């Protein structure tokens, strides 16, 4: 009950932030140079053609009128029509969001598990050779450009070893996967399409590996630092000097206290992963949300830009909200 009230209050607090985001993007995208009409008509279009196109997308209206129309649409779930493709933004986006979320969520789960295990392992051996190796490894992971790492993986695993499929597409078209959510693994599972499931897994291998390597580094560093702090805390020392056994110390006194500090960081890393996905999708021709939003930005496709910016902001703040709830569950000191 308390959690529900907290979530509702936080959702209410989000409204002004999101409204700010909506106003800011709406204005910025129009104030900054670049004209979406020119990009669809080409340089040789006449003034009359341009004016006609403008009228078609409602761009001839005064700014406040456009904004009200846009807001009105948002309330009913209508994100407008893409200037580039002429399709409804909402349905285009729905198809694109699935593959991207699938990539990010799978990578984040794998990274969290690796970071927790390795971070605690490393903290318990602080100062030893194993710990130093892990730490330098994490620093390298922190420093590697993900788009380049993707290319190197393609070069080695696909071009040289031939173990991975070609970096284009998310699933073998021969498997006749029917589209439901856009998240191919999920769709394959829902339709009980075995070959598609395997093919999707195969295609996910390299992009997920790339993303895991770059996001595991910050998580690992934090788990290690947090575990180290717990290990050095008086509370842990007290439990250890009272003769509690190793297993009990690990499970009862180290694990939860270590993870209690992590949710906010995990949310931050989620955002970092979304940023990285734009680059990784580009490298692997993933045809996900990132590539779609990027094209929208480049062509000044107003409705697409507005919608993608809003959705990313919403997603991000929701993840932070989830993180706060998880933190409150893990740490009894946090009141929500």
């Amino acid at each position, binding site marked *: 009950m308390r959690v529900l009230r907290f979530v509702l209050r936080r959702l209410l607090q989000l409204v002004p932030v999101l409204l700010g985001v909506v106003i800011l993007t709406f204005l910025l995208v129009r104030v900054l140079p670049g004209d979406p009409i020119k990009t669809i008509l080409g340089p040789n279009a006449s003034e009359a053609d341009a004016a006609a196109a403008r009228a078609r997308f409602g761009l001839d209206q005064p700014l406040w009128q456009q904004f009200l129309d846009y807001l009105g649409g948002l309330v009913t779930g209508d994100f407008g029509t893409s200037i580039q493709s002429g399709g409804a933004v909402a349905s285009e986006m729905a198809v694109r969001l699935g593959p991207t979320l699938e990539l990010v969520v799978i990578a984040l789960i794998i990274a969290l598990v690796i970071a927790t295990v390795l971070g605690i392992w490393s903290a318990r051996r602080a100062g030893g050779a194993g710990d130093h190796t892990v730490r330098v490894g994490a620093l390298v992971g922190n420093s590697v450009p993900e788009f380049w790492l993707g290319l190197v993986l393609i070069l080695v695993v696909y071009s040289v070893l031939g173990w991975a499929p070609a970096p284009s597409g998310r699933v073998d078209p021969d498997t006749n996967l029917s589209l439901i959510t856009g998240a191919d693994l999920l769709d394959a599972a829902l339709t009980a399409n075995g070959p598609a499931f395997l093919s999707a897994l195969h295609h996910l291998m390299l992009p997920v590996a790339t993303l895991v390597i770059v996001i595991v580094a910050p998580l690992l560093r934090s788990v290690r630092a947090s575990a180290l702090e717990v290990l050095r805390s008086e509370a842990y020392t007290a*439990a*250890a000097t009272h*003769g*509690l056994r190793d297993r009990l110390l690990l499970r*009862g006194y180290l694990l939860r*206290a270590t993870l209690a500090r992590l949710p906010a960081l995990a949310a931050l890393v989620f955002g970092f992963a979304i940023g990285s996905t734009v680059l990784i999708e580009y490298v692997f021709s993933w045809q996900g949300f990132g590539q779609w939003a990027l094209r929208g930005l480049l062509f000044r496709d107003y409705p697409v830009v507005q919608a993608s910016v809003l959705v990313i902001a919403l997603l991000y703040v929701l993840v932070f909200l989830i993180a706060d709830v998880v933190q409150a569950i893990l740490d*009894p*000191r946090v009141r929500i």
Partner: protein
Amino acid sequence: MTLLAIEDLSVVIHGRGRQVAALSGVTLSVGSGEVVGLVGESGGGKSMVARSIVGLLPGGSQASGHVFFDGSDVLAMGRAELESFRGRGAAICFQNPRGALSPTRTVGRQLVDRLLTHQKLSPDQAREVAAELFESVGIRSPKRRLAAYPHELSGGMAQRVMISLATGCAPGLLIADEPTTGLDVTLTREILARFRQAADAEGRGVLLISHDLASIAEVCDRVVVLYAGTVVETGPVARVLTEPAHPYTRALLRSVPDLDGRPVAVTPGSMPLLREAPGSCPFAQRCTDSSERCTAERPMARLITGEWSTACFHPKTGSLAERVHGLDDIAHARHLEQAEYPLRIGEAPSGEPSGEIEAPGKAATTGGAPYRTEVVDAREVLRVEDAHVVYGSRFGGGGHHALRGVGLSVAAGETLGVVGESGCGKSTLARLMLGLQAPTRGRVEVAGRDLAKVRGAELRRLRTRVQLVFQDPIGSLSPRRTVADAIGEPLRAAGVPAAEREARVRAALERMELDASILERRPHELSGGQAQRVGIARALVGEPDLIVFDEPTSALDVTVQAQILKVIAEVTSDPSRGAVFISHDLATVRGFCDRVVVLYLGRIVEEGPVESVFGDPRHPYTRALLSSAPSLGRGFAGAGVTLTRDLEETDAARGCALAPRCPFSVPACAEREQELRDHGGSRVACHRAADIPGLIELIER
């Protein structure tokens, strides 16, 4: 039967580019059913002894010697052996109980963890035993408390839980590291009694570590005194307390101000930080009796009688109390600067301030130029009228009522003492006087002007008329600024030119008996005592009308505290300025204040001349504070009062704030607010004040 025998234990810690000899040849023992006190100032090595016993030495340390427990050497134990020894053999109660309880596990589970590890119990049995243990350490409604997380407990409650955790391991030896730090006097007694009980009823050995001999004296059988990592004296508590043989023990005991107002001795210098095991007596530099032999050779422990031994070539004899007024000591004092300054010797019969020896200037107090001719002759430097402070939550509602209608005034030449337990509003009152906190209601006047009515540069100027000396001496100095910057800050702000500033800073420094070489140092390079002298110099340099001392010695070691108290006594004797001395320690206030104000939960419950408040307290709370304060001397002479509950368990919604805890409360107490009324020389906020002495007699009979 000897349970623990430490033999010739030495610990050297190798740090970055330096090494510290934390312990050098320590020998001590604890038997079953015995409570042994381990005392000394910080840096003496008390905690290191505790850590060695459970094999918990810090990184980079090297230990030699033996720690025998039941015949086997802890230092030689392997990992597995050590694991089974910890807890069951010896268990520590940690100094900071809140920090030593795991924040993400209920205290009940933490206790059950220990019970299951060390005792053959089923989980159900363990839960029952846990509830019993909680009850036995004085936790009310134990079943409910088992499900609490540590952050939901008060400090006293957390300490009780910590004790139950340690005893839950069923150890042969219980080690308590400063178990009463940060607890109020009333609670301290109760906690210490638990340890005595563990020895008497359960037959455990107890090693009680404390910086304060007075507070643990009552429950100990024997004490061991540490100085610079060496044992200087060990023996039965009665002997060591009353007729200590080692000069350091004597210095330590006589540095502690006592409620009976006896004089305090000042020992110059501070404890050395040794690089290696000392080749001579580590106390020789500060000792009045040191001879050539003391600086050439290290004295080894020598038996005096029975269990009593000391490591000194010239052990002293005779009672500490008698020697205070002995001629030879006064001769020494003149000769060797180990000045005893009788802060107040003569017992003033009527509460009239008289008999100061150190402060002849005070006699002139009442003759000062009259600024106002109302209540006092002397110029009034501070007046607080009906001040309320509410720390509101940001969106209104609730809020913490820190002060509830406090009124007081301070005249030039006068020293006002403010005492009370933690949370009574002392610090808020200090901030109020400094203008750091505006009153929610009421007014604060400095030099006759209302702080709320001035603004900008004028306010800044007015503020400088009142200066504060802080509780945390090092924290009150800017970490990146030098001592010269710190002391000169008030002058800088007042626009004093650089040359004059330097001269005045040097003068202030000299007054504090500090060397000019300290000017270019930064706070982290200072000792606590030096930093506090710098803090006082900063407060003095601008020649303010009033200096507020907010617990100025509570973060300092005992011998350093005595030095600083002497400095403060000199500063407050100046007839041209007033002083406020805030402390939780009643004995230090008795030393040199003229009047005392006793605060309880944001209200003044008693106010009056120091002699009548301390000699004949009228309010039950004052009496309870006085009778529970630890004392090495005669202590509080009158009949005692014991409050019935912890402060944290009560809240004062209506009526007398003390009513829920007061043994004399009647229904009428809870019905109306108590106002301060005259009783003898004091003013007391208790409608039964006149009946209290009779009531006490009734109870005692």
